[in-house]
């Protein structure tokens, strides 16, 4: 079946429209439609990945027009696993957060589902598209819905969301301007076509300006330190349901876009030979990793800690992408996939915990290992992955990143990664310490004391464990992922 790429992106869009209509007619239909839409999308992404494995790179021409006239979806070794990860994570987080959405949003829950689906449509579209301008449109879809999603939350959420909107719009505008410059210089918007036409123009200042503008735009959206100002507020004040969807996906998709721009639109030959930014960017990434970790260390709230971890992780991937050797690229791509899972697991766990307490301040976490063993168990797995303990997947991407840093001779980045791992150990064990200590005096509830297990809703816990199992599975099979997808992608 060769229509998988279309279904992959259209299914959530159609489902979103159907939900918005059904909301006025029969509300009970909304959630099943949403699951159906994302489920179709996930299955299609598996189909796409299977086809990539057999056929390699392929193209889906929208409207039957051949690029560069029309728009085509390009699926290759690089984005097939990203598609699977994004659609899978979106499905899991939709199922997980249903209770939260219904409780928080009440009658507006269908609207929330619609916004979620549209956001996912945008991200999947961005990942699959082969057209630079189309990417902008999809970026805006996921951003606009993202602004709305982050605005629902606590008292400060609208303010954080408005800041996100302003900065996000600057980012998107920079990207658009950069694409405009490219179009002006080449006359095409298609990525593959651009990569053919650009080498003749590599010396041009305009191309350099375009590259920088696109890069800055992406970094703003991906929250690379010091352009991260919007992220902590937006993700820590937003509703847990939105944070669970956006935090794992949005920054990662933007990192993917950066890789795409670096590899496909411009070529590594341009990025690493014509211009010499890599020294600066890797330093920036090292600073981002260290700063993100330190800021996470300064937090007294689990959720705020998690958002700064996201900032640090962005530094990992950007640094890996700019180290400029195969190993580091492998690490960056693998870490992108892993980070989707890790962040998903982390935020789902936080949502599960938050459902049973007022705030996720550390002081409220006492005794959670006894009362919420399953959520905390999954959180431990997520933490292991973020720290980088095998067999959790985070170890293996970190392995490649570290190795790439050594190969490139960038010991500052190496030190930053190790430092951040160490900080992560401190972060999470501080947390576990709180959760392990019952808060009662010395001997706690004793062997015979009855501990009431007070878990989050089943759907949430089940999804959380799905994410945690994913962490282990990806960890065990990361060799195959590298061999089958990432290596050919870097050929």
């Amino acid at each position, binding site marked *: 079946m060769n229509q998988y790429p279309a279904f992959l992106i259209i299914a959530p869009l159609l489902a979103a429209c159907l939900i918005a209509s059904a909301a006025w007619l029969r509300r009970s239909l909304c959630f099943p439609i949403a699951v159906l839409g994302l489920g179709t999308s996930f299955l299609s992404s598996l189909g796409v990945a299977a086809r990539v494995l057999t056929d390699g790179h392929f193209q889906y021409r929208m409207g039957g027009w051949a690029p560069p006239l029309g728009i085509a979806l390009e699926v290759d070794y690089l984005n097939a696993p990203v598609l699977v990860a994004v659609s899978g994570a979106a499905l899991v987080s939709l199922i997980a957060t249903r209770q939260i959405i219904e409780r928080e949003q009440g009658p507006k829950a269908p609207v929330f589902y619609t916004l979620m689906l549209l956001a996912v449509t945008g991200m999947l579209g961005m990942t699959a598209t082969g057209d630079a301008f189309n990417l902008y449109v999809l970026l805006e879809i996921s951003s606009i819905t993202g602004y709305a999603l982050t605005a629902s939350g606590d008292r400060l959420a609208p303010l954080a969301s408005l800041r996100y909107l302003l900065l996000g719009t600057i980012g998107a505008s920079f990207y658009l301007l950069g694409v405009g410059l490219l179009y002006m210089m080449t006359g095409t918007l298609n990525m593959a076509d651009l990569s053919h036409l650009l080498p003749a123009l590599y010396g041009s200042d305009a191309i350099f300006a375009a590259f920088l503008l696109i890069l800055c735009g992406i970094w703003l959206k991906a929250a690379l330190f010091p352009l991260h100002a919007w992220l902590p507020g937006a993700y820590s004040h937003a509703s847990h349901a939105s944070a669970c969807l956006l935090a794992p996906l949005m920054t990662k998709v933007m990192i993917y876009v950066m890789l795409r721009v670096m590899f496909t639109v411009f070529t590594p030959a341009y990025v690493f030979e014509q211009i010499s930014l890599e020294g600066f960017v890797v330093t920036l990434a090292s600073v981002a990793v260290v700063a993100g970790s330190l800021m996470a260390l300064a937090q007294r709230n689990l959720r705020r800690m998690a958002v700064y971890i996201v900032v640090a992780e962005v530094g990992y991937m950007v640094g890996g992408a700019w180290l400029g050797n195969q190993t580091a690229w492998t690490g960056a791509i693998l870490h992108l996939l892993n980070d989707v899972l890790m962040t998903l697991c982390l935020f789902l766990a936080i949502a599960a915990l938050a459902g049973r307490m007022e705030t996720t301040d550390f002081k409220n976490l006492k005794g959670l290992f006894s009362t919420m063993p399953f959520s905390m168990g999954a959180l431990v797995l997520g933490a292991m992955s973020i720290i980088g303990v095998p*067999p959790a997947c985070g170890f293996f991407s970190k392995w490649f990143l570290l190795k790439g840093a*050594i190969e490139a001779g960038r010991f500052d980045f190496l030190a930053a990664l*190790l430092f951040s791992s160490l900080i992560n150990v401190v972060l999470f064990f501080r947390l576990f310490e709180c959760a392990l200590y019952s808060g009662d005096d010395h001997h706690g509830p004793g*062997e015979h004391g009855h501990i009431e297990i007070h878990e989050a809703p089943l759907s949430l816990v089940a999804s959380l464990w799905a994410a945690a199992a994913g962490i282990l599975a990806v*960890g065990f099979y990361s*060799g195959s992922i590298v061999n089958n997808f990432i290596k050919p992608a870097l050929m």
Partner: protein
Amino acid sequence: MHEIVSIRPLLAVIASLAVTPILLSARSPNVREGWTFAAGAVKLGIVLSMLPAVLGGNVFCFALTEVIPGIRLAFRVDAMGMLFALVASTLWIVTSAYSIGYMRGLDEHSQTRYFCFFAIALSATIGAAFAANLVTLYMFYEILSFATYPLVTHHQDEEAKISGRKYLFFIVGGSVVLVLPAMIICHMKAGTLDFAPQGFLAGHVTQGLATALLLLFVFGLAKAALMPMHSWLPAAMVAPTPVSALLHAVAVVKVGAFSVARVLTGVFGVDLLAQYGLGTLLAVLASITILVASFIALSQDGLKRRLAFSTIGQLSYILLGVALLTPKGITGGLVHIAMHAFGKITLFFCAGAIFVAAGIKNISEMKGLGRRMPITMGAFFIGSLSVIGLPPGGGFISKWFLALGALESHELAFLCVLLFSSFLNAAYFLPIAYNAFFANPPDDAKDAGIQEAPPWCVAPLAFTAMASVWLFFNPWPFLDLARLAAAQVTGG
């Protein structure tokens, strides 16, 4: 030497892991502990089933998925791993029995959690013993660190909290910051991480790099407690005594020492170490640790703290033995893993039993205790002999081989270190036993009669004490395994 592909190593590793869900959901403590014993028996059975073939010079292999191109999670059971696995799985059963007595005797809290993490820790230990390459070893090493953290901080008071932090800082910090880069450099230089009997780094590294790697490994594997990476060990003594017993006699510290031994032989290789003179470097480091730890132990009053510093010193015996790079020395180092385990676990069991029965933690309060607790203190005496290295304790065997190894390598300085530290060992252990039996007890406890700990406590310690003695007369299979392993790594 045949390679036998078999799933048995994997089964041995997961035997104890598999029961954790059952342990978690078990309704009554008896069911829970029944399953613990069942898992222990199965594990020991699987390990034993591989013993004859391994003694015959064969190797069991089993590979899981490929995690990094060219590197698989894999198990490989050779003589060295077998030796360690055998010690760990035997002592797990004994410790489980002891735990039941200790935990119930003190009515400790969260016993289910305790037994679960105990099981996970054991899986990780066996996994480390059977690891076929550095990544697998590292994985189980880290899992062990994580699984033992809740055990160390079991008491959940302020002291436990601080100790737990220290424990993690040294162990996880060391492995992440030092070992991980060292592994990556090895992989870059040699292109493989699979342990080879003669090491795989030879010909790939210069002397400077080899020295740097060696230091990264021996300090990064902080569980081996080579000074100055030792200070987590006394701190971790806040754990309940069975935990201390298992952790500091068998699982954690021995995984550290075993890992270092594995890295020295399987990664560097004896020839490379000898060529660059790295064995001497490590032997000097180990000697310093042995002497300093022994001196510190002399000044400790807390019984468990004295045992902890004794452990630090004894671990470095193992390192010293391997660092001598001679077949006799390596045999002595490896067999010391077993001998010290049996001796030291006896001592810890005794310390726990004394605490359960008499509530005593300090050595100065133990005067005349031998009259109230004759079995316990008798076992303590035997354990002391073994650790000091006097016959009829099993420790004599390993010390004997260590001394032979030192002679063989013509390094008389190390022989002196061994002898002098044995003297120090005697100086800090024997007075305890002497005081317990011959000093006058404090007045209030003069005629209390015999007050032993519960049978669940006493039986295990009596068993390990007898095992220590028995190992002196019949060190099979540990000595054979150690000899075989030494022959394999030295290419003899």
